C-alpha cells in the first residue's frame, strides 16, 4: 500500500489508502454479483440465439430465428396481453385497498398495532401458504366461499373459481391483491404520518369536508410515494410467477398464462431452453421501460 501511495504524490496518501480499503470491502459483493447476475444475464441473451434441448443441453446456433419465431407467434402476444390484464387488474385493487386501509389504520383505533400486524401478514406469508389456503377456500365441494355465497343466496350452485374464464383471471387478480396490497399500506401509512396537521386544520377552516380534505390535502401529499409504489408494484406484478403458477398453472387453456409462466413452460416443460431464453429477454425488454423510470426517480430522490 505504501508503494501505491508514493506513486500518487498528488493525492493525500491517507485518502488513497482509504479508497483502496473501500474497493477491497466492496470486492466480495462485486465478485458475487458478477458471478450470479451479470454473467447469467449476458448468458441469457447469448442462449437466446441458440436452439437447446433441455435434457441433453446440446445446442446449435440459430441466430435471430428464435426472436422471429417468438415475435411471430400468437403465444407471445396473447401472454403479453394476459400479463398486462393481470398486472393492471391486481395493481388497481392493491392501490385502492392499500390507500383505503392505510387511511383507516392511520386513525385512532383500538389495538392499532395488532390491526396493523394482521393486515401485513399476507404480504410476508409464503406464496405457497397463501395459495394453499385460497385453493382450500375455493374448493368446489367443501370450500367455505361457495358455501357462504349459497347461504346468502348470491348463487345457487358452487362456483368454479379457478377452472373456467373469466373466473380464473378474476380469482388470480383478487388473490394477488390480497397478498400484495399490504405493501401499499406500509408505504402510504409511513407517508401519512408525516403530513403536517396544520394542512388539515387550514382545509377545515376553508370549509373542506372529509372528501375535500382527502382530494385537496392527502392525495397531493401522497403523489410521490404513490408514483414509486406503482412503479415498483408494476415491475413486481409483471414478473410474478409463484402465485399464478400455483393457483392455476396458467389454465384454463392458457388463459392465465403470463410471460414468466411461458418462460418456465418452454424451458422445463417443452425442453426448449433457447426459445425460453428468448421469451425471457423479450419480457425483460418490455419491463425495461418501467425499470429505467424507477431508477431515474429513485436516484433523484436519494442524493
Amino acid at each position, binding site marked *: 500500500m505504501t508503494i501505491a501511495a508514493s506513486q500518487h504524490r498528488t493525492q493525500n496518501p491517507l485518502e488513497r489508502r482509504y479508497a483502496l480499503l473501500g474497493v477491497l470491502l466492496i470486492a*466480495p*459483493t462485486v465478485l458475487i*454479483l458478477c458471478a450470479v447476475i451479470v*454473467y447469467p444475464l449476458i448468458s441469457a441473451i447469448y442462449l437466446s440465439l441458440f436452439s437447446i434441448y433441455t435434457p441433453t443441453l446440446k445446442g446449435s446456433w440459430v441466430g435471430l430465428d428464435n426472436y422471429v419465431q417468438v415475435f411471430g407467434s400468437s403465444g407471445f402476444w396473447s401472454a403479453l396481453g394476459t400479463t398486462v390484464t393481470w398486472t393492471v387488474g391486481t395493481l388497481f385493487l392493491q392501490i385502492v385497498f392499500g390507500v383505503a386501509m392505510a387511511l383507516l389504520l392511520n386513525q385512532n383505533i383500538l389495538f392499532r398495532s395488532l390491526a396493523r400486524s394482521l393486515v401485513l401478514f399476507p404480504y410476508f*406469508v409464503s406464496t405457497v401458504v397463501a395459495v394453499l389456503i385460497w385453493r*382450500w377456500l375455493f374448493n368446489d365441494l367443501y370450500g367455505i366461499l361457495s358455501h357462504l355465497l349459497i347461504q346468502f343466496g348470491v348463487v345457487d350452485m358452487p362456483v368454479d373459481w379457478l377452472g373456467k374464464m373469466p373466473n380464473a383471471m378474476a380469482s388470480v387478480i383478487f388473490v394477488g391483491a390480497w397478498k400484495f396490497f399490504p405493501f401499499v399500506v406500509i408505504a402510504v401509512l409511513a407517508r401519512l404520518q408525516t403530513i403536517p396537521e396544520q394542512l388539515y386544520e387550514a382545509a377545515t377552516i376553508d370549509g373542506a369536508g372529509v372528501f375535500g380534505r382527502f382530494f385537496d390535502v392527502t392525495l397531493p401529499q401522497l403523489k410521490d410515494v404513490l408514483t*414509486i409504489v406503482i412503479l415498483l408494484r408494476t415491475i413486481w406484478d409483471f414478473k410474478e410467477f409463484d402465485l399464478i403458477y400455483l393457483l392455476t398453472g396458467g389454465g384454463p387453456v392458457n388463459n392465465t398464462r403470463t410471460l414468466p409462466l411461458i418462460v*418456465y413452460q418452454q424451458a422445463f416443460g417443452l425442453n426448449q431452453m433457447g426459445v425460453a431464453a428468448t421469451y425471457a429477454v423479450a419480457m425483460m425488454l418490455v419491463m425495461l421501460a418501467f425499470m429505467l423510470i424507477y431508477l431515474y426517480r429513485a436516484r433523484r430522490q436519494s442524493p
Partner: protein
Amino acid sequence: MMPARRSTTILANLVTWGLVLLISFPLIWMVVTSVRPQTELFQIPPTVIPRAITFEHYIKLLEETPFLRYFMNSMILATSTTIVVIVVGTLGAYSLVRFSYRGRETLAALVLFTYLLPSVVLIIPLYLMMVKLGLANTLTSLVIAYTTFALPYALWLLRSFMAGVPEDLESAALVDGASRMGAFVDVILPQALPGIISTALFTFILAWNEYLYALVMVNSDQARPLTTGVMNMLITSFNIEWSLLMAASVMMSIPLIIIFAFLQSYLTRGFGAGGVKG
C-alpha cells in the same frame, strides 16, 4: 360536538376492525382447518367454529410425511443465505456509504437495478451453471441462487441504515487513533446493529418463502425446502388432505409468527429504511 365525535370514533373502529378481520379470515381459516377433526371437515354445511380440537394432523404431518426433513432443509438454507448475505452486504454497504472511489454511484445504481431483474431471466443460465458445476440438487445451489435477489436487497437496506450512523462518531474514533476497520468494528457495527438485525430478518423471510429456484434446481426430497416440498405433497397425493396441508401451512409460517410476535420493532425499523421498498 363530543357525542358526534365519539360516534365517528366507534364507527371508524368498527369499519377498520371489520375489514382487518375480513383480510385475516383466510389465515384464521387455515388455523381452524388444521385443528379440526377429519370427520368435521367434510360436513355440509361447514361450521365456522370447530366443535372439537385435535392435533392429529400435526402429529401425522411430523410422523408420516417428510415434512421435518423439508423444515430442516429450509432452516439450513435460509440461515446460510442470511449469513452469507449479511457478512458480504455489511462490508459492501459500509464501503458504499463511507468511502469514495470512482464508479461508486454507478455501482449503487446497478445494485438497485439487479434487484428489479426478474428471476425467470436468470434462472436458465443459473440452472445450466449448477449442472456444469455438479451442484444441481443440492442446498448449496440454492444458497448461490438466492444471493441473486437477497444480496442486492440486503445491500440496499444496509446502505440506508449505515447512512443513518452519524459521521462524527466515526471521525472521533479516528482522531483517537483507531484504524478505519477498528472504527468500523467499534463504532459503526454497534450503531448499525438494529438495522443489521432487521435486514437479516427480512432476508431470512425472503429465502424461507422462495419457490421458483427451488422448483427448478432441486428435484429430490433430500434437498427440497418447505415451499416445493409442501406443494409436492399436494400434487402427489391421491386424496388431498386439506387439514394436513393447512397444518403444514401453519408450521411453515412459524418463523414468521415468531418474528411478528417478538421482533416487531425490527420489522418496523425495516419499513422505515425501505425494507419493503427494496
